[in-house]
């Protein structure tokens, strides 16, 4: 696995819109973004309503994922090309999610929606009609998903990477600053976690930094290549971005995303917290 297998440029995406066997998928929480214009032929996935269980805090199960992809007209043989807003946070989350359910060919558009817009590339308001498929998912691959007990057990023994902003890491603010700061959980971070914000891995236009820059970044921030790694943020989407960098771009082994993240950890009774 290398950068060319998992990441495509906006130029490549533009040249390949409509290519059979490729399905472009926009993933946002703000679905008005898609409705206001999207890559020609792209289908929409709503991060919240499509990918989250409507009752419990968890993913949709395997059967629901199969039903979702079947209804969207995505088949097991298709290459899924993901992009989205928020510097590809939710597209990276969807990438991880597709991998969790065993989809083989998945790619991200470098820079996502932001670079596409800044480049002034064309957007379409047409909703594509794709015939339904009979999608079959695999059992969830839990080698890439961490749960809370494993996080607690990893204190001092694995690379714990907190990818939130420094002010969230320190507990000064409890959520990214585009959201109101009223949260139930305590502020701070998991003891021994290193604060390597997701944003350090990206350029201002949302594209990923080069492999050389990324290797240097994690080395200088104390990432230990001999240890397993768990990345977390507030709800697991920014840490998907870092999971993508470490596992898919840099090819690190044993990297998990803790999607429970700070909203769960900071609400647990009795676990250690550092500020």
């Amino acid at each position, binding site marked *: 696995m290398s950068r060319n297998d998992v990441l495509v440029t906006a130029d490549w995406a533009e040249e390949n819109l409509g290519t059979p066997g490729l399905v472009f998928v926009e993933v*946002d*929480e*703000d679905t008005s973004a898609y409705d206001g214009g999207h890559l020609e032929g792209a289908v929409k996935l709503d*991060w*919240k309503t499509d990918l989250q269980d409507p009752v419990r805090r968890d993913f949709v199960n395997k059967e629901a994922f199969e039903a979702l992809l079947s209804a969207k007209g995505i088949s097991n043989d298709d290459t899924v090309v993901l992009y989205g*807003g*928020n*510097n590809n*946070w*939710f597209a990276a989350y969807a990438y991880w999610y597709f991998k969790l359910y065993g989809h083989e060919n998945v790619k991200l558009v470098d820079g996502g929606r*932001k670079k596409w*817009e*800044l480049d*002034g590339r064309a957007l379409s308001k047409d909703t594509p009609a794709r015939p339904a498929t009979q999608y079959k998912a695999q059992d969830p691959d839990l080698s890439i998903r961490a749960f809370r007990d494993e996080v607690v057990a990893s204190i001092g023994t694995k690379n714990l990477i907190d990818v939130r*902003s*420094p*002010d969230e890491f320190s507990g*000064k*603010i409890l*959520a*990214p*600053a*585009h*959201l*109101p*700061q*009223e949260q139930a959980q305590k502020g701070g971070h998991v003891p021994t976690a290193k604060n390597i*914000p997701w*944003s350090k891995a990206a350029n*201002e*236009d949302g594209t990923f930094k080069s492999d050389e820059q990324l290797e240097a970044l994690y080395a200088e921030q104390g990432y230990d290549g001999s240890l397993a790694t768990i990345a977390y943020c*507030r*709800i697991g*989407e*920014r840490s998907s971005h870092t999971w993508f960098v470490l596992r898919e771009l840099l090819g690190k082994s044993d990297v998990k995303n803790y999607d429970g993240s700070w909203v769960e950890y900071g609400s647990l009774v009795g676990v250690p917290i550092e500020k």
Partner: protein
Amino acid sequence: MCGAPKQGGTLAGVDLNTQTVIQGSVWHDGAPVPGAYVRLLDSTDEFTAEVVTSPEGEFRFFAAPGQWKVRSLSPVGKGEQVLSADVGLNETTVAIS
């Protein structure tokens, strides 16, 4: 939920006794810039959040008291503004030159 709420509009429902709101608009050539990317950087210039301006060119952040920088990136150019925020409403304008 990490998607930004709709930008602009009223502050109804926002408690200005506890929230540190930084809001304003992005301007270029005497007109507001819709669809501009605006990011909030902390006192060390590290990314804290990013939103896209409303059709009226407005943005809004919920931060904490302290020094901040608002930087805008759009197809028409870049601009930035440094400000000191307190609890309550802090308004600023970012001009793209």
